[in-house]
């Protein structure tokens, strides 16, 4: 049976892939894909810890809320992206610098 380390390695790979996607992509939707990967990595970590460390249900509930949050975030973020596209005709992240301050 696989141990904690293998899950942590997988979640690390997921996380790093997410980070690289965020860094390397210029399409906002693609950046959001990377974000979903990161959220999945964290949810996976929660479940793994809850099985291997303390074996209670709280890790599951936390992952559940991460999934809920990810869905809500995706909905709102994509709405913003669409709105942005309507105004600027672009999904290029470097065009979204109006709030540079």
């Amino acid at each position: 049976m696989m141990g904690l380390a293998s899950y942590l390695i997988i979640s690390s790979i997921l996380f790093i892939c997410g980070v690289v996607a965020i860094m390397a992509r210029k399409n906002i939707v693609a950046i959001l894909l990377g974000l979903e990967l990161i959220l999945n990595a964290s949810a996976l970590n929660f479940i793994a810890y809850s099985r291997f460390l303390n074996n209670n249900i709280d890790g599951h509930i936390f992952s559940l809320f991460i999934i809920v949050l990810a869905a809500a975030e995706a909905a709102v973020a994509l709405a913003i992206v669409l709105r942005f596209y309507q105004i600027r005709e672009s999904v290029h992240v470097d065009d979204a610098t109006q709030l540079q301050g």
Partner: protein
Amino acid sequence: MSTSNLDIYMPILMLLLLGVLLVVVTVVFLSKVVRPHNPNPVKEQAYECGEDPVGSAWSLFNMRFYVTGLIFIIFDVETALMFPVVVVFKSMNEVGLGGLVLIELTIFVLILAAGLAYCWRKGDLDWVKSYQTGKDPSGRPRIEND
């Protein structure tokens, strides 16, 4: 024998693999053997009732598809959260806590129903009406499909 280990997921994996393999085998390998292959430019055109297609089909779509998806995902998540609560309702009802769970469930549902009511009121659920006013923001030709 009741199985309590991961073996219960075995048929799922099998079925999924079967689905994948069926397509791979028939489309990739079998097609080499039994099917003719005589491509020509007209055959490879997209079908538009005999006309030459103009431009790509991958162009802008209307926002209402997104709004539908948006409302769907919110309700999807809502039902996902409601599943465990609904499951325990019966056992809770048997020990007399049914009213409590029902109230929690009702509050949860009502809050989301309020969201649905808001979208209804603001016309987000109307497929046609609220989108007729105003030009297409992008100013490009848009595929109309209703």
